[in-house]
Each structure stands twice: as structure tokens, then as C-alpha cells.
């Protein structure tokens, strides 16, 4: 559940970012397409990183075993 919610948050952030980039750095249609590609790539990379780390911790096979110092 939290996974889906956060994925949707990433999607919304991506849409907002592409709109912002369109407003601030607008060029011709070809330049806009490039900016859109860059934003989408960045959002997809970031989401993948987060999703991998989140999924790996959902049902872990090992747990933290504290070392002597703590």
C-alpha cells in the first residue's frame, strides 16, 4: 500500500517537474521534447532507486543483530 502511494507521489512530482521545466526553460517544440525526456529519465531513475531499496526491506530474510558496542 505504501509502495503504491509513494509511486504515485513520484509520478506527481514528475508531472510537476516537467511543467515547471516547460514554464521556465521553454524553447521550441524540439527543445521541449528534450527537456521532457530528461525529466522523465531523472524521475524514472530516482523512482527505481527508491523502489529497489523499499522492496528489499519489505520482507527481509535477516534482521539487524546489534554489535557489542551499542
Amino acid at each position: 500500500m505504501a509502495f503504491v502511494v509513494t509511486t504515485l507521489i513520484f509520478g506527481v512530482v514528475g508531472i510537476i517537474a516537467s511543467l515547471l521545466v516547460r514554464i521556465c526553460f521553454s524553447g521550441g517544440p524540439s527543445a521541449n521534447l528534450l527537456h521532457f525526456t530528461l525529466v522523465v529519465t531523472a524521475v524514472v531513475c530516482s523512482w527505481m532507486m527508491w523502489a529497489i531499496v523499499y522492496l528489499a526491506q519489505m520482507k527481509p530474510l535477516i534482521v539487524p543483530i546489534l554489535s557489542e558496542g551499542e
Partner: protein
Amino acid sequence: MAIDEFLDNLPPMDLMRSEKMTLVQLIIPVESAHRAISYLGELGLVQFRDLNADKSPFQRTFVNQVKRCAEMSRKLRFFKDQISKAGLLSSARPAMQPDIELEELEIQLADHEHELNEMNSNSENLRQSYNELLEFKMVLQEASGFLVSHDNHTVSEERELDENVYSNNSYVETASLLEQDMMRPGRPDQSGLRFVSGIICKSKVLRFERMLFRATRGNMLFNQALADEQIMDPLSTEMVEKVVFVVFFSGEQARTKILKICEAFGANCYPVPEDVTKQRQITREVSLRLADLETTLDAGIRHRNKALTSLSFHLAKWMNMVRREKAVYDTLNMLNFDVTKKCLLGEGWCPIFAKTKVQEALQRATFDSSSQVGIIFHVMDAIESPPTYFRANHFTSPFQEIVDAYGVARYQEANPAVYTVITFPFLFAVMFGDWGHGICLLLGALVLIARESKLSSQKLGSFMEMLFGGRYVLLLMSLFSIYCGLIYNEFFSVPFHIFGGSAYKCRDATCSDAHSVGLVKFRDPYPFGVDPSWRGSRSELPFLNSLKMKMSILLGVAQMNLGIIISYFNARFFASSIDIRYQFVPQIIFLNSLFGYLSLLIIIKWCTGSQADLYHVMIYMFLSPTDALGENQLFWGQRPLQIILLVLALIAVPWMLFPKPFILKKLHTERFQGRSYGILNTSEMDLEVEPDSARSQYHEEFNFSEVFVHQMIHSIEFVLGAVSNTASYLRLWALSLAHSELSTVFYEKVLLLAWGYDNFAVKLIGLAVFAFATAFILLMMETLSAFLHALRLHWVEFQNKFYHGDGYKFKPFSFASLTEDED
């Protein structure tokens, strides 16, 4: 298909493919040629082809003008040299004078050079005389000391001579001479005991003395004294130490020998009068003359410096002018001089979007040179492949340079730089992830960007220049590093609880078995990133290793799939359905049925928490696919699915190997024997863009074995590469582990250790060592290391899926690029 229509209707993306280039031909009348080329140089959008490539530089038309320009630039370099030698600063005064023509400049430069050379030679002469007089003065000062005591020591010297004579009985000559001298004992000065006084470099004194001793067979007395001041050696313009010497000897032959030896050793001999009053008189005269010469020399130097300063005001402007003219003549040399038609023919590449600008510039040139005939400019068909031109702005150009460093894109093939802009900093960050270090990098990048205007006009060292050129790369790297640092939860290796509490807690209130069995997960995973409870625990490394290795595989498979999909778009753009059907499809199937399946298994294992051993699953998928999976079963239907995937992968290999060469052969025979209309629709290359027409002209042969071997190499490379490239992505894990461990070591073993002491000095030293270690090892070395490995991943693992990189870059004739080239 709807998708095809959608893709076709999209506007072409900036930077994705090279700008469309066209080959143009220019026919320029002679009177407007120079002006036309200058205007084109200012515009900077045409790359001229060298039509006289087979001629040597001396056979070309404008060789004289080029020589004149070279001569002028030599003179300008000479002036610059003189200015820097004189220690003056070359400052460029804003151009108050109007621009001058090249011929006038030539004459002016010749005049200035002549003047400067005269002044220099005059100073040379003066300085030489000055040196001689100085030496004479020193000889006078020191030698007078020897000669005063000479009178007192004459008797003892004679006795020394006696002894020498009797010991050298075999040397009859010398003995007889000395015996003669000894016959007249009463007049010591007239006894033939004469002297030579002079001055010699200190380094040669020992050898000089020995040589004299040998030549005169020991019958000489050598006195030396170090001169007070150092003298400027005219040849090496250094200050050398000199030694004043006086050699006492007797006999005429000894004298000639000594003088010759003096000459050989470069010792200067000066006559010193024995009379003390005369000595004083001469010393006074010499001092006076020295003072005169000094003032003259100073005046000469001041005059020269004034001339040099006035030159330095214009120097930069003149050098620029000469450089431009030389470039214009070099370009004119590339054109063909059509003597019968009194005009120059030129060929060049120019982007299609710039055609109107070029025509405008040519029209202006015609108008400005009041020529009657206009310049003809028309498009030609290209036989060879055009150069590649990407219009990158100063944000994307460092990424484009990174891609170009491996190979310039073929004309109109997909440019990996579009994705590299994001994925390169991202992969860097995966290996560097620490938001504390990321903030340090961000500060550095922001400093470079803030002082952009100031730093871009300065001349920087090569390291700073690279750093400054990559400031936007550094900015993106730092932003992604901060993001990945937040995900790995490392701030100088310290975890924080920014996104809420940890998902783990002790099993009971006493935390008694926290050190043996461990904590227990009691709620949803930590919402963003790695749970802070892992840091410092004994099972931290097994967990993180498993996480990071699987992450590397997932990221790697994703990037490689992206590469293969880009190759699909390339094949689509060049309308090569063979490449789509017999290269793209089998490649996608092969990669995904093996490593895509592995990625799927990883995700399923994470989602279900299964204890299946993925190594086991993958290996036995190949070794014994029909065996029961037992406890390695992750989902229903896994065994039949694995068999299907294995079969697909096995089919894909001959699919990508065999059909393409046979179909190419069939196409080739059909094109050149029969002209069947149906086949031409699926022509392999776009005839306008690809040099297939050239191939048809000079390459009638279709070498089947060559094509087959090429395809085999390509397939084997892909199949083996699928395994090795996937494994290569594990460096993402390796480097991030190294970074994290180094960071932990520096934090725990340096900072915490030092902070534990009560002593303030120890704390300070610990902090300093921690700061230095972080800055040099983590921030510099690790940055370079992660940069390099991210680069390798892009250049090899990503780009070998689709990139050819055998094009050449568009280098237009432009004055702006000249100033960076030379000097």
C-alpha cells in the same frame, strides 16, 4: 499502427540526431573572395573541404600571403618575447586607434622590429664595454694587492725558482733561461720575472692553474683572489663569480704560452701597472668611465622599454588580426582557382538551418566589395557521409564531449548523450552515495557556476579548465549524490532518522537478545531509504551486499534494455526492417529471457519474502531445466516458464546469426540484376542519407563471407556480452561498498576516537585528519574513481548495444574557434 503514427508525428528531439547537413558549392569571383571568406569565418557555420589536398603547401595559390602572415606573426611573437623578457606587463588599451589594413600593419611591424633590433644591439655593445671595464677595475683592485707584496717577496721567489730549477735538471732550456736570469740578481724587476694579470670564471680556476703549472713546468707563481662583485656573463645573462689572478713567470716563451692558455680558458687579461700611483690614477679613470657607461645603459634601457610599452597596447589586437588573415588565406588555399573563369570554386558542408544565413553573408560580401558578379551558392548531392553536428548549449555540451571522447556519432544515428545527461550522474551517485559528501560536491559546483563569467575569461591551468568545463556535470552529480545518500541513509557514514522511526525494535523490553538473535520488524518498512537500524549491526554487510548486488543487476538490465530499444529506433529511422526483425527482436528476447527473468525473480523474491536461492535457480535452469524446483519455487508455473524461456533464448542465437547475411545477399542480387519493384520498398538503407549510392558506385562486389563473419562476430559479442556486461554492472555494488566502508573507517577510527579524549589538542588534530582524509581520499579520489567507472559503464555496456560512433565532427571555419586553438 497507432504507435507508429504517434512516433512519426512527434517533433524531432533536439540533440537526438545530428543536424541535417548538406554539401554546398560556392563559386566566388576573385574580388569578393577575401571578404566572403572573412564573413563566413565570422558566421562560423561552414566547413570547407580541402579541394587541393594533394598539393603541397608551396604549390597552393595564396602561398605568398600565408608566408607574409607567418612572417608577421613571427615578428609579433618576437615583440611579445621582448616584452616579457623586459618584465613589462602587456596591457591592452581599448582600441583608440582606427583599424589598420594588413599592408600597413606589415610595414609598421617591419619598422618596429628594425628599431628594436638596433636598440638591442646597441645595448649589447654598451654592456660588453661595461663588463670589460668592470673586470679591469676588479683586476686593478686585487692585483695591486699582489704586486705590493711582490717587491718584498722577490728574493724568496727567486729562491723558489732556484729549487725548481735544480729539481728539473732534464729541462735544459728552462734551466738555461733561468740561469741567465739568475745572473742578474740585483734588479728583481728586470730579472725577467714578469707577470700577467687577468680575471677568469671561478669554475675554471683550478684547471687553469694546473694547466699553467704544467705548461711552464712549475716555473710560475699563481696568485688568486675572489672578485668582490659578480659580473654578468653576456652569453648566458647570468651573474657569475670571477676570480682575479696574477701569474708571475720569467721568459718570453713562457709568456706566449701563458697568454695562449688564457685565451683558451676565456680568461681576460688586463695590464696592471706596477707603479702604485699609476694604478690609482688608472683606477680613477676606469671608475669615471664606468659611471658614464652606466647612465648611458640606463637611458638606453628606458628608451627601449618605452617603445615596448607602446607596442604592448596594440599587440593583442594585431595578433588577432594576423591570425584571422592567416586563417582566411589558409581557407582560400582550399578553394580551386578557376583561372579561365576568374573565380574560385569551393565545396563545403553546412547545416540546412544555416543556409539562409550563409547566403545573406555572401550577399553582404558581394555588396561590400562592390563586385558586379554575385556569389553562386547551391546545394550538391553528397557522395560521402556528412559530418555530425549537435547544437548543444553550455549545459549539455560537456555531456556531449564525454560521449564524443569515445567516438563521434555517425551521421544521424541516435545520440546517447540525451540519456547520458541523466544516467551518468545517476550511476555516479549510486557508487558515491553519501549526502554529506554530496553537499560538499554541490558547494564546489555552485562556486564554479557562480563565478562562471569571471572564470570563463581567465586563462586557467589544464586541471582547473577541465573542472570548470564540467561544472554542470559536477552539479548534477552532486544533486544525485545527495539523493542516493538519503536513500543509503549515510551522512559521512552516519545514519539519521529523517523519515520517521526505524521499522525494527527489540523483541522485548530488556533488549536481551538484541546481540544474539537481533531485532524484529514490527511495522512497514522505513518509508524512504535504508533503515537506520542497520548501521553498525553485525548483519549489516550481508544485508547491504545482497541489496546492492541485486540493485546493480536491476539497474544494469534496465540500462541495457534501453540501449537495445534505442537500436530499434535507429533501425526505424533508417528504415531498415532487416535490422528490426533479425537483430532487435532476437536481442531483446535473448537478454530478457535470461537476465530479465533474473530481475523478475529478484523482485518476486523481495515481494514474497521467499527463501529461494536464486543462484541455484538460474544455474539449474540451464543444467537440468526439467527437474522439480522444490523449495526454490517462487511462483506457480515457474518450471514450464523456465523451459519456455530457455528455448526462446536458444532460438534467439541462430535467429540473430543466420538470416541477415542471406537476406542481404538476396537484396543485393535483386537490386543489381532485375529491378523488381517489390523488393525496393524494403530497401535496406535510405539512399539519400546513407552512402549506399557510393557503395553502388565503387562497391559492386558483395563479399558474402565478409558480411557473414561480421554478423557472426556481432552475434557472439552480444551473446557473451549479455553475461559479461550484466556482471560488469556489479561494480556499482563494489564501489558503493568501498565508499561506505572508507567513510565508516574515517568516521569511527579517526573522528570518534579523537573525540573520545578530553584533550582539546587531540580533538583538533583528529578533526583535521578527518577533514583531510575526507577531502583527499573520499572527495577527490573516490569522485574520480566513481566518475571513471560510470564512464566505462556508459561507453561499453550501454553504448555497445546500439552506438556505432564512427562519424566525424563538424568543424566549421570560424574565427571564434581560432582564438582557442593557437597561442
